[in-house]
């Protein structure tokens, strides 16, 4: 299974999200074509209500612990409740351009 599908299935299982979007952004970086190293996750679930941002990120990191220790080099996380998501019209920032410091 690809890293992307693994991320999708693990997050779906752990949070039953109302919205989940996992993007492989490796092409924005100086890595071989087809790499699966840089990901952006948008996840919306009411399980996050009442949780500080850092706790939400920790929860996502925990679920993806194995992948973060292995293939994932960068993980951008946007974790919201359905209400927050509606308020911001589903908009999140674009990931920054690479500055070449990856290792």
């Amino acid at each position, binding site marked *: 299974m690809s890293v992307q599908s693994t991320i999708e299935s693990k997050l779906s299982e752990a949070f039953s999200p109302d919205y989940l979007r996992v993007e492989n952004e490796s092409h924005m970086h100086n890595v071989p074509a087809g790499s699966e190293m840089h990901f952006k996750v948008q996840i919306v679930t009411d399980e996050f209500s009442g949780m500080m941002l850092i706790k939400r990120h920790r929860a996502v990191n925990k679920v993806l612990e194995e992948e973060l220790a292995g293939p994932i080099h960068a993980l951008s996380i946007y974790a919201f409740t359905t209400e927050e998501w509606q308020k911001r019209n589903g908009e999140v920032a674009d990931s*920054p351009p690479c500055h*070449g410091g990856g290792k």
Partner: protein
Amino acid sequence: MDVMQRIDDVVKNNPIVIFMKGTPQMPSCGFSSRAAQALMNTGIEFAYVNVLQDPEIFENLPRYADWPTFPQIYINHELIGGCDITLEMFQNGELKKMCEEAVAASKEGAEKAK
């Protein structure tokens, strides 16, 4: 000195510190760059550690606060998160407030120690 102790000293001795790839002026990673920029935009002085210049810290920082990626931003001796959280908090105004409080708390601490 033990690396965990070194990291702890940096975190405890600075009200605001970012562990990043590169420096705020010459960042080596887009995420580090953005987080440092957000801190600079608060107008409040902060410390930084270039993890690319210190392989030991680079290797061990993730287990210090159980956070797997860089950058890592500590305010008032506590991890607030990485790039995404720092940006979110900058945009909603919390970052500046938190930085101001951390600086005030550290000045107060220094006064008491006199």
